[in-house]
Each structure stands twice: as structure tokens, then as C-alpha cells.
């Protein structure tokens, strides 16, 4: 992760407008060779639009795209170098699996035997060597998706584009295929961009995630960066869960009622209106304020309700300091047992300074 791979795809000052509506605003990206990138964001944020611009299917209105050092900004699709897989798979229904996979290989002057061998190799690669003579309609959704992948990879593209490839599948198959696609990508080392609105998918598969919102890039970073150090309230909110409270920032501290919390966040303007965000798993339980001697950022709270979720307890707490707002905390099984936490208990919670995220309100 530390030794940055050489740059393969650059997007510079890219804008896209549909008539009056601006769908993409000043997008800048630099994607390394062999990287697995996810475009993540809510529906309608422009992920597909950006992917289609990269593919040349629906060209950007302004800006440039470089691929492998070449300016491809206004090259037609056929002159670019990529394979694509759509949510619908878009397998040709009247051609067998083998013919589908061979579609990009035929008509290129390759000898027949060569094509056949390559098709067999690809089918083996996606784990479906037995299905060559079947028609797409005779395969399951997951199998169809793998065939679509094999077809896209057949021409050895420098770039693999995936538009929500897994969203039409049921949950179990999806988790399984996630893993397989990631493995395959690592094995082939092909630079990949996948569009998704499923954060789990993005977190588990991507080397780096591009979080998008309303046609702009909110943050680019590794899954841990995105999760642990979200660059904006939107990212914090969209990825994972957070407790949020609105207040003001003063002198490295934020005030909640009678309690004042320290934060390690930098670069927030003095006196700015801010939102404080804390992830549920970052909340530390204590029996009482007194029992947490030495700890800072303490809030007295009442444990209202607990849910056992297998690997941890999900707890709803209330504090006079937060008014009527629920505080959600995920406590480890260990901590619950150690402190003997029960609903109704008056206790204290610690919000560690380095985990208190502060975001200035947007204008």
C-alpha cells in the first residue's frame, strides 16, 4: 500500500452536463496500475455517469481522461482499451456461453483452435468449465455474471469496468462472488473500477474508494481511511454508523450542555457551527464518572435498551446532556460481562478525544 503503483488512469477536471443539469462537477482522479477502485455513493450521485465517460459511451462535457499515458478524452469506444460488465450482464441470449465469451476474439484473425483454447481457459478462470455449450438462460444469475466477466476479460483489456455487477444477485451469492472477483482481479492484476452503492461491497473489495455525492468527489482513500477518518460528515454518515450532535467549536473543544469535549480534529474555524460525530464502536463504557478516573470526555448516561447481535451488544443510551437524543454504542461482550451492564443502569460513557470527529457545517 505504501509503495504507490505507477499511475494508469487520470481524470482531470471532468464535468458532465445533461442539458441544464450538471451531473458531474470537476472530478479529478488518479488511479494506479492494478488498483481496484470503487465508486461509491447514493443513487443518482453520478457513479454510472462517470463510468460511462471513462468508457466513452457517454462522453464528458469538459475535461480530460488519460489512460496508460494516452489522452483518450475523445476517442470512440472502439479505440479504447477496456472490458465492461453491466448489472444486466447483457449476455447475448441466442449464443452459447462459449460463443458469448468468444465474441470479442472472433473476427480478429485468430486461428479457431486458439480461440477455443482461450475460451476454455477463461471459463476455467471463472470456475465454469462445464457450461460452455449452454445458453445464458440456462444458467443462474451468479453464473451469468461470471460469464459476462469472462467475456469482458477475453480481450485482455487494460481496464475492467463493472457497473453494479452484483446488485441483481441474492445476498449469499453476492458475498461469494465478491470474494471471487477480488481474487481474480488480484491474480490478473487488471486495473478495475467498480460502481456500487453498497458500502460493504466497497469496503471489502476496493483498494481505494471514491466516495461521491451530488456529482462531486467527497473523499478518495483506502477503506480504513474512509472509515476511520471520513473527510466530511456526508462520508461519516454514508459509511458506517455515527452519533451526531450539532454544536460549536471553540479552542479545540466542543461543548455539549454542561460538558466540554476535547477533539484532535484540526483545521476547524474558531466559533464555527459544527456537527460532532462519534461511531458507536468508539464509545467506551464505564460504571460511573467516578469509576473512570483519569479519563476525559465523559458523559453520564442511562442504559435504556440492549440488543445482542452475536459478536457485540448494541446499546441505546440516553443522557440529559444530549437532551432526548439516543446515543448508540456497540459494547463488546467482554465489556458487558465485566461491567455487568443491564438496561436501566445509570453509567458513564467516554468519547475518546481522537475518535471525536468534528465537521464544520456546510454553507
Amino acid at each position, binding site marked *: 500500500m505504501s509503495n504507490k503503483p505507477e499511475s494508469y488512469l487520470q481524470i482531470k477536471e471532468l464535468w458532465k452536463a445533461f442539458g441544464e443539469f450538471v451531473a458531474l462537477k470537476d472530478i479529478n482522479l488518479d488511479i494506479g496500475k492494478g488498483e481496484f477502485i470503487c465508486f461509491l455513493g447514493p443513487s443518482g450521485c453520478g457513479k454510472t455517469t462517470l463510468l460511462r465517460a471513462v468508457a466513452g459511451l457517454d462522453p464528458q462535457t469538459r475535461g480530460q481522461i488519460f489512460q496508460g499515458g494516452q489522452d483518450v478524452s475523445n476517442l470512440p469506444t472502439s479505440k479504447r482499451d477496456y472490458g*465492461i460488465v453491466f448489472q444486466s450482464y447483457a449476455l447475448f441470449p441466442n449464443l452459447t456461453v462459449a460463443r458469448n465469451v468468444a465474441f470479442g476474439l472472433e473476427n480478429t484473425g485468430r486461428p479457431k483452435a486458439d480461440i477455443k483454447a482461450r475460451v476454455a481457459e477463461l471459463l476455467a478462470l471463472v470456475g465454469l468449465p462445464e457450461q460452455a455449450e449452454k445458453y445464458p438462460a440456462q444458467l443462474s444469475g451468479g453464473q451469468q455474471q461470471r460469464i459476462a466477466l469472462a467475456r469482458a476479460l477475453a480481450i485482455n483489456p487494460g481496464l475492467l469496468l463493472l457497473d453494479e455487477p452484483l446488485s441483481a444477485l441474492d445476498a449469499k451469492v453476492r458475498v461469494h462472488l465478491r470474494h471471487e472477483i477480488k481474487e481474480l482481479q488480484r491474480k490478473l492484476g487488471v486495473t478495475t473500477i467498480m460502481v456500487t452503492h453498497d458500502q460493504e461491497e466497497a469496503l471489502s473489495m476496493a483498494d481505494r474508494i471514491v466516495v461521491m455525492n451530488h456529482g462531486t468527489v467527497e473523499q478518495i482513500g483506502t477503506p480504513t481511511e474512509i472509515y476511520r477518518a471520513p473527510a466530511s460528515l456526508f462520508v461519516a454518515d454514508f459509511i458506517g454508523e455515527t452519533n451526531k450532535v450539532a454544536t460549536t467549536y471553540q479552542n479545540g473543544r466542543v461543548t455539549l450542555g454542561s460538558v466540554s469535549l476535547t477533539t484532535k480534529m484540526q483545521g476547524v474555524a474558531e466559533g464555527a457551527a459544527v456537527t460532532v460525530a462519534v461511531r458507536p464502536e468508539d464509545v467506551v463504557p464505564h460504571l460511573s464518572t467516578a469509576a473512570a478516573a483519569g479519563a476525559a470526555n465523559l458523559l453520564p448516561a442511562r442504559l435504556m435498551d440492549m440488543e445482542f447481535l452475536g459478536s457485540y451488544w448494541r446499546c441505546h443510551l440516553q443522557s440529559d446532556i444530549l437532551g432526548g437524543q439516543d446515543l448508540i454504542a456497540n459494547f463488546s461482550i467482554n465489556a458487558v460481562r465485566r461491567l455487568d451492564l443491564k438496561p436501566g443502569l445509570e453509567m458513564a460513557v467516554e468519547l475518546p478525544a481522537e475518535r471525536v470527529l468534528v465537521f464544520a457545517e456546510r454553507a
Partner: protein
Amino acid sequence: MSDTNLPSGPNVTLKLDRDGIIKRAFMAVIALYLIVALALPLYAMLSKSFVTYSFDLDRYEFQVSDDAGTFGPAQSAAAINEQLAVFSDGQLRTSSDGRLSATALFPDFSFRSSLKYRMRGTEEDAPYLVGLDLQNTTEWQEYDSNTFRRINLRPVKSVGVQNYFEYFSNPAMFSSIQNSVFIALVSTVLTVGAAFGFAYALNRSVMRFKGFFKLVAMMPILVPSLLPGIALIYLFGNQGMLKSVLMGHSIYGPIGIVIGSVFFTFPHAMLIISTALSIADQRQYEAAESLRASRWRTFWTVTIPGARYGLISAAFVTFTLVITDFGLPKVIGGQYNVLAIDIYKQVIGQQNFEMGAVVSVILLIPAVLAFIVDRQVQKKQVSLLSARSVPYQPKVNKQFDMLCLLWCGAMAMFIVGLILVCQYAALVQFWPYDLSLSLKNYDFNRTDGGGWAAYTNSIKLALMTAVFGTVIVFTGAYMVEKIDGLKAGRGVFQFLAMLPMAVPGMVLGLAYIFFFNDPANPLNAIYGTMTILVVSTVTHFYTVGHLTALTALKQIDGEFEPVASSLRQPFYRLFVRVTVPVCLPAILDISIYLFVNAMTTVSAVVFLYSTHTALASVAVLNMDDAGDIAPAAAMGMMIFYTNAGARLLHMLASRRILRKTQSWRGR
């Protein structure tokens, strides 16, 4: 916050690759086809309707000498005409080839006299002929009397609404409008009523023989619209065996036209209404039942509103079919004039093309109106369709099912009956005197009308229309549906593809005369050939095929093209390998539709055939016109057999394809 306004600068456009160029070329070729085969002829016709030709006597001056050769004062032709009242205003109006003899203005004229004549134009454009030489000069020209008798004035062209004015001030012409509207209204009410009953029975009852009835309901499509007219003449005509049933009324006229119209429009209305009824929602009926609504009330509050779009659409389609039909009124209309007949008479009878154009434009109005309403209604119906939920399941109701059976039986008897009468009439020696059977009426070479050659010509036309038409229509629809970019171009294309539906066949045929028979047109060479018949027929029936193709193409995944181009495959490879095979059933449907219609159509081709491209459907018309009704019936039946055979082949082919493709369609 980042600026949300697009920075200034040019929009990025992709370079054209070979694929893009080929696509554009394809689209241009087909758009060009539609422009040449449709837009330009219509434009030619429209402009023709505003052109009048008349002799403008103000433009000429004459001088006559005495015996000694001294010329008298110059007099304008208009002044002479005013004094002598030689020509009425009506006589001065003429067509583009009008000629007016100059000598008529000089009652004492004798070509043997020694008098001399001088004439000149008083304006720039004052054409006249000396024999065959066209003169157009403001200089005085001198002629001896023998030459002067060969002088004819030529009309000048002017543009304006004069023709329309004349049309509407002519009571005979105007009554055609009333007649046409009357016939169309009555036929529409009867057809929609009958078709609704039939479709209702098919969809809402559990009567027996549904398959048979569906088949019979489609039979009228297989014959020319004038065939029922012939059958009606045999039944109720002057020598008809059931003449007395009419109680003194004549079948020649509105009665015959209306009955025949119900026959030939029935399948169209039935299909539309049946589709509308088939999308009913079972749950609405269950709700009505739980509210204890009576059957009657349910019918008016659930069934009719649910089918209203279908009913409106069927009514407009029927109205248009009847008002633009030419075959039936020609065969059985007698003295009853309708618009379509007026066009024919103006053009074929009186060679008054301009007036024919005027009537065409008038005929265009209801057709265009119907077309617009139909499109609106279709859109609404589609939204009903997508909201469809639980299909209606009819329950057994003995009494009601019996009623349905009776109604369908009666309609089937009407349809099959008329066709059987034709068949019988074609086979008897001499109706109604010698009813022994013979095949002599099938010896078409013994009657005028084109003989067996007309029949083979029709087959040729139908095959060529089916093949070329399907290629053009399907490729055109593909361009509209699957090509990215070029939005404006595709919009125009789509408009052109929808236009033929709004243009009656007669109007199209006449427009072709104006456009292709113009010697200045480089395409003039196809006039009078089979090519122009194929072009006009493909164009005439373009829209239905286009819509069928669009529906099929819309069901194909829109990502096929992007995938193929990412695999660096040209679009035509995808088109041939995937699109066409997947759409094969629709393609077959388009071709059989074109084939059947090419066999039966009369209206456009009646203006365009020549002696060596006579057609079977036109032969039916002409033989009937010449009094050879039995051979006309025989030829009509030949068309029926051919179409029935073609439909059968189509069905077998579709089955085979379906079986072959079942492996990849279903699981």
C-alpha cells in the same frame, strides 16, 4: 464550495470511428429513402394543390390588318373577349396543358383570307404556341392567317387558395364530404359495436370454438376491401338472389358501402378492442362483485372505462379506413360520390391533377386527426398495461356464454358467408341463370384487366415488398432505437416513419404521380415500373412494421451495443449475430404483414400501375368496372388463397423458429 457552473469552453465530442461512420451512412440512406418516397412526394402534392393554371387575356394584344395590309388599332385580348363574350371565366381556368385557340377571338377569321395578324405580350410572361413553337415576347410578331390559325394561348401559373375556394363552392364536390363523413360514421358505429361484442365474447366468456372465431375474424384482412362489394352485388344487386330483402332500396350506394366497410374494417377494430379487454384486472371485478354491483352496472363502471382507450382507438382507426377507402365505393357506390372516388375521377377521369390534389389534402385531414388521437390513446393504454396485475379469469355462465356464441356465430357467418358467395360466384357458369360449375372465370387471359400476368405481378410485388420492406423497416427501426447520439436526426427519422400511417393510399399514389412523373425529376425513370409499385407499397405500410420492430427492439438489452463496442466488434456484427436472430419472430411478422397488404392494396397502386405492371387487386377493380364481375370475384379469391397460403407458411416458419429458439429463450 466548488463552483457548480460548467466552465466555459467547447463540449467534448468523440472522434468518429469506422463504426460511427457506417451507422451514420446507414441512417442517412434510410432517411433519404423516407424523404424521397414520402416527404418530397407529399410536398409536391401539397404545393400542387395551391397551383392554378389560367389563360390571362390581359397579357396579350392583337392587331388585325385590312385587305390592303394596313393594321388597325391594338386591342387587348381581354377587351375583345369582353365585347364578344367568347370565353366564360370557367373556360379560362384550365390545367397545366391547357390551350386556347387565338382565332376564337376573331369570329370572322378565315385561314384563306389575306388578312395579317400581329400579336405581342404586354407583360414578360405571356406564353403562346405557334404550332409547337413556344413564343414568349413583348415584341410585335406578324402572322399570316394560315399561320395564325395554329396559334394557341398557353395558361400562366398562379399560386393561391383558388382551388380550395373553387372546391368548396362546388355543391357536388362538397356533398362528397358529407357522404364520406356519413358513411364513415355509420360504419364506425356498426363495426365498433360488432367488434366489441365479438372481442367481449372472446375475452370474457368461456364459450367454445374461440380459436375458430379468432381465425375467422382475421379473414377479411386477406382480401381486397372491394371483395365484399362484389359478394354484396351477387346477393343484393340487380340480379341478386336476396334483392327483395332490401325492400326496394338499392345495394348500390350507402347501404352497400356500409355493409362492405363493416366487413373489411372488422378485424382491425376487433384486434384493438380485444387487446384493450385482455388487460383487465381481475381484482376490479372482484371488488365490484363484493360490492354486490349488478352485472350490468359492473359492465358500465368497470368494463367500459377499462376498454375506453381501445374503443376510442378502434373508432378512429375504423373511421379512417372507411373514409380513405376507394375500392368499395368504386365497386358498389353507384352514383353515391365520396372523397376517395372524387380523387380518382378528377385524376383518372378528368386529368385535373390540381383538383385531385385539393381533394387529397382534404382527405388528409381526418386521417391525420385520427392518427394523432390514436397515438395519444396508445400512450395512455401502454401505461394501463404496465400497471396490469391479475389477469381476468372468466367464469362459466351458461346463458351468457350461449349469447356470446350466437353473436360470434352470426359474425362468422357474415364474414365466411360473403367470402363463400364470392367463391361460388367465381365458380358458376353464368349467375343467376346457369348455376352449373366451371373454371372458366379463372381464365383471366380471356378478360381485360391484365390476365394471369396481373396475378404473377402481384406475387412479385408482394414478395419484393416483403423482402425489401422488411430490410428497410427493420434497419430503420434499429437506427432509431439503438444508435446513440444524433438525437435530432433520430427525432426527424421517427417522425417520418410514423407519417405513412396518417397518409391515405390514394393520397400517396397521387403524390407519387406529381413527384415521379415530373420529367425534371431524375427518378422519373422508375415511373411506370415495378420499382415504383414496390416503393409506394413499402412506404404506404411502413408505420405498422416500424412499430412492430420498435417493440421487439425495445425488449433487447440496451447494453448489447456498448458491450460489443468494448469488445471492439463492429455494430453490424452484433446486428447480424444477435439482434436479427433475437428479433426473428417480429421480422417474420413484418414481412407477412407487408406481403398480405401488398397483395390486397388498391388505393396507392391504382394510380401507378402501367400496362405491363397490372396487379391482381387492380384487375379485380377493372374487371368489375368492365362488367366482368365473375372473373373479378375469381381473381379476388386467388388473392385470398395466396394470402391464406402465405399466412400458413408464416405460421409454420414461426413455429419452427420458436422451437429452435426455445432452447435459448426459456429454461
